[in-house]
């Protein structure tokens, strides 16, 4: 159980309010891609032990998805940001 600071609500909330929404920044391949590329896009995940970049959904709160970098061994949260701010930074 941990507290997550939602970047939209601007407050730390209980983990129960959130749902995990998968690995972040998976690129959708073009329609001309091969079946294998499409299969990888749909099913293959990095499954990292250590620092991961994940999408989380504030499902019981503002219902927005944001990005969270965390260590899935120690449960330490390293950073949380919105997709908009990432786009702005790039």
């Amino acid at each position, binding site marked *: 159980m941990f507290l997550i600071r939602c970047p*939209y*609500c*601007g*407050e730390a*909330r*209980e983990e*129960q*309010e959130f749902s995990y929404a998968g690995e972040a920044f998976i690129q959708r391949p073009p329609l001309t891609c091969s079946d294998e590329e499409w299969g990888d896009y749909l099913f293959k995940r990095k499954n990292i032990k250590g620092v991961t970049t994940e999408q989380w959904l*504030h499902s*019981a*709160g*503002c*219902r*927005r998805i944001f990005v969270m970098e965390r260590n899935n061994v120690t449960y330490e949260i390293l950073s949380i940001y919105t997709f908009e701010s990432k786009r702005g930074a790039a």
Partner: protein
Amino acid sequence: MAKFEPQFATALEQQDFNRLNSAAFKVQELRDYGYVVLRVDANTEGAAHALAKLDISVPEPLTMTGSLDSHLVKWIGPSEYGITLPLAQKDAFIKAAKEALQGVFAAVVDNSGGYSFLHISGTQRYEVLSKLALYDLRGQLPLGKVVSTIAAKSGVIVYRVEEESLRLMVRWSFAQHFWNALVKASEEYR
């Protein structure tokens, strides 16, 4: 075929509210309010003009604007606002909102039947609710604040417009369960 006769009902009207009617903990279900969901990004073209026309000022995160006498606009998420207003004014408001927002990328949806609206008061209200809610309602919900969170495993929207009470919205389909949870959690204060 029988003519469809709509009936006005609330989620908890079958319940015996005398069971939750003490000085320590009192719950009432409010029948006279409607709930309209407004989805619009205030920065969208034409939105500012339309919102001004509707006398809506867009609230900051976790806050509210307006009042329950005309329309109380609650921040639910970025570009999503929950508007509680007197039931008698609801249809006219929706009509006016749809007209004002014509051509703007926005949505106005009547969700009045989707929720049970509860008014919770009593000296032990925070003691009871803290058994159910994840959020620190006593410490972190000052006047004018609204939070969307979980209580007794149900999604709830809790807000404060008065010093001595809380308002809570729970989905119709969860209302019976939430009621049972309130009855059980308040047992020791009856």
